């Protein structure tokens, strides 16, 4: 199993939020996005302006807070960290390259590059050697005694890249890193990033330029705050990947909406696209079979044709059950399909979550479902409320063996109302609500890194 560095589950970023009373605009900059970044990945996020690329990057890089969902970086839920811990975390593991270099105006280029490493109390000679070494690599060694206002945009950007690399970060976040650079400097920077990636640094890059995206190993296309498609480079050439990216980006739905092409032609093209997407799904399914079993995923299980809670569905990944056929999108945004008849056994458990609302703070409980199949075990945290009993009954109908040590089924039958059931769980499963055991949403507790 590969090492997951960042895992975002059903994250939403809402501007002017008021989810419960619905007084605000509730603009979803990110809507129910799942994301995984593995060690050594070079992922690129593309999308039109306003699609939420930078918001996603800011949320994943701890610079911005998410409104819903959870982000884990190296198994640490970032909502549990306070400001100082977040800073320490950023300093130790993360590097940033922004479009507008973001250098400190009153520090020289040398001091700007050295700024993050100064916090480590390293030996002065080591600091100097590191800065000079990086400056030489980026061809800015002559500018070290100058101030940002005395340098060109390209030079400042290279200094910003040097600053991002000085700590040897595990993950580098790049928001349009070549936006202010000429083509020669852009390629220089991207080659450098590719080289770093080959040496093991994980990179998450946001751009709207297909050429830049073609340096990555994987491209995610964001549209209106949601992930529309994901493509992989695999072993293909950069040129092939570039063409694939162009295909995706030119299928922009706004273009489709305002296109003057006849409907029939659009329909034909749509069919071809669907076939192509099917092919992609097949490819993903064959090559990345193990990806369905990477980590526990939050899902809302619905049986097609039966009523479901639309509010919960809006904020969670849907786990569709159509007869015995199941399909959903995993955290890597791969489409996963399997048949429930292949499931040999189901293990139920509970997870408690602390919701900090001051006076109204409380614990909420979600069942976890581990589905054991010959290929591996699918891990889910189920966001269903009262309707989870229907899912349990379906498992019984399909004669799937159920292991339920916490008697969850019994609780659902005895207390069909969510409020009563929560109280019951709180009384009977005290081990789950001990300090530091429960997860938290807008947290106060958490393990230090």
């Amino acid at each position: 199993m590969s090492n997951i560095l960042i895992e975002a589950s059903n994250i939403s970023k809402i501007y002017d939020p008021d989810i419960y009373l619905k007084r605000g605009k509730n603009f979803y900059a990110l809507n129910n996005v799942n994301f995984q970044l593995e060690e050594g990945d070079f992922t690129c996020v593309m999308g039109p302006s306003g699609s939420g690329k930078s918001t996603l990057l800011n949320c994943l890089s701890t610079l911005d807070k998410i409104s819903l969902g959870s982000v884990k970086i190296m198994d640490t839920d970032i909502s549990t960290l306070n400001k100082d811990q977040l800073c320490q975390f950023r300093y130790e593991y993360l590097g940033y390259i922004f479009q507008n270099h973001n250098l400190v105006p009153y520090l020289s280029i040398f001091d700007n590059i050295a700024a993050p490493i100064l916090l480590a109390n390293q030996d002065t000679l080591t600091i100097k050697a590191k800065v000079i070494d990086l400056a030489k690599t980026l061809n800015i060694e002559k500018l070290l005694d100058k101030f940002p206002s005395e340098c060109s945009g390209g030079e400042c950007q290279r200094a910003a890249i040097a600053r991002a690399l000085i700590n040897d970060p595990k993950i580098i976040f790049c928001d349009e890193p070549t936006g202010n650079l000429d083509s020669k400097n852009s390629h220089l920077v991207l080659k450098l990033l590719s080289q770093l990636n080959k040496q093991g640094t994980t990179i998450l890059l946001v751009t709207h330029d297909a050429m830049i995206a073609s340096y990555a190993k994987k491209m995610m296309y964001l549209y209106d705050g949601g992930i529309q498609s994901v493509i992989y480079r695999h072993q293909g050439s950069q040129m092939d990947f570039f063409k694939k990216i162009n295909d995706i980006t030119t299928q922009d739905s706004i273009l489709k909406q305002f296109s003057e092409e006849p409907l029939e032609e659009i329909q034909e093209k749509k069919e071809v696209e669907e076939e192509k997407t099917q092919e992609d799904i097949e490819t993903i399914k064959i090559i990345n079979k193990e990806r369905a079993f990477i980590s526990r995923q939050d899902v809302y299980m619905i049986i097609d044709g039966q009523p479901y809670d639309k509010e919960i569905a809006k904020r969670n990944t849907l786990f569709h059950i159509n007869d015995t056929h199941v399909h959903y999108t995993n955290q890597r945004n791969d489409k996963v399909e399997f048949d429930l008849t292949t499931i040999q056994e189901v293990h139920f458990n509970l997870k408690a979550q602390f919701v900090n609302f001051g006076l109204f703070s409380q614990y909420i409980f979600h069942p976890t479902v581990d589905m054991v199949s010959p290929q591996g075990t699918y891990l889910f945290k189920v966001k269903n409320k009262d309707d989870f009993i229907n899912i349990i009954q379906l498992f019984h109908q399909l004669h799937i063996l159920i292991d339920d040590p916490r008697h969850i089924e019994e609780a659902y039958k005895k207390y069909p109302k969510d409020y009563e059931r929560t109280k019951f769980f709180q009384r009977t499963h005290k081990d789950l609500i001990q300090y530091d055991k429960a997860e938290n949403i807008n947290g106060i507790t958490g393990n230090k890194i």
Partner: protein
Amino acid sequence: MFTFIKKIYKNQRKDYVMLLIILIFLSSFEFTFLAMYDAFTQFNLHWTVRSALHGIPVLASLVALVLNIFVTKYFIENKKQEFSILLLSGRKPKDLLIYLLLQFLPLMVIAYIIAAIIGSAFMYLINWFPQIQNSTLILNYSFINVCFYSFMYFVFAFIVILALCAHQFVNLDKDLAKYLSQKASISKPAYIIKASAVSSKRKIPWLMIIFSLGAIYLTVASLLNLLQTNLSTTDLLMSFTYALAGIFMLVMTVIPLLYDLLHHRLLKHPILMNALSSFNEFARVMVVLATLNMIILPIQLFLIFFGAKQELIQAITLPCFIMMIIMIALSFILRFFIYNQESRSTFAKLNAIGYSPHILNQITLIKNILFLFLIFIIPLLFMGELFYRAYNQGLLSINIISIMMITYLIINCLVFIYTCVQERISLKEVTQNVKYLNRGQ
């Protein structure tokens, strides 16, 4: 154009109200100083005494005028993008002057009209204060004369502002793209690096070292000289001038040089390094106000030694000194308000690369303490020396000296607290909002 101005007034109401309040205060003080000057012209005094006594309110009124111009200029400078948008939409630089006239003339006129009323009230208070101490001194002034002086000051201030803006508009017109892009927000370097941070290129800036040693020598020697009791007025003046020049050089050249020379050691202390660097930037931004506090304020006090009667000197020095401090503090607050908005993105940048709010707080605190010490406390030592001499020569009573020193300390401490609180609020806001890092900001 009127609709555009109306919308700008509406959207930046808070900023305009703040500007108007500061302009009213400055103009009121200016009116009061001019009224004092007018009152002194009616006394029959020897020419040396008269010129010294005239000098105190005239110098203060000129400071008020400079601050009036300074405040308006900074406010207008902050509107570069607004002007560049107007130029972009096809307006000529000449139209911009009319736009500026329409936008700022009413503000200045309102400020000067209200100032005449508040200034008269201040004069009433100034006359009332000696009366309760059983003094017979009354400063009689001609309202029409003072209004005339005030009008002349207003015209002069407006012409200078227009000239400065015309220069700005021509620059904008010449390089519009620069001001519309992000480059316009990039400030000049805080200082010039003389000794390189790279060891192989490192050169010792001997000239700067000699210059800085000279500055330190001037400050220390003149301070020691001022402590001698039997100094003639000429020696006192010379020592005093050297001391003021020394402090100014200390702030402007010695600290950047120290930063430069000790860079190798400072790399081990990120907080101190950032604090010194940000102090250099802050001192550059506040140079006009620092000069007023470090040089003009003590000079004004120095003029009392040329006066003769304690009654007259006290009547003029106390209000002038207090009003000068208030003027400097108000202008400082306005300039700081603009500086604070600009520095938010710097906090955000440092926060993004791992500087915690706690570290950033320490950086700003060291910077502010250094500024308080060099710009406010050291000049106070010199002023204390002058007060002591004035007391010995019977020019000022101990009560007046105490009031002046306490006012100076209280107002500057309030400014210091305001600076720290505002920066703390900014830090809090910056660490909670990613917009300060984004290009769209």
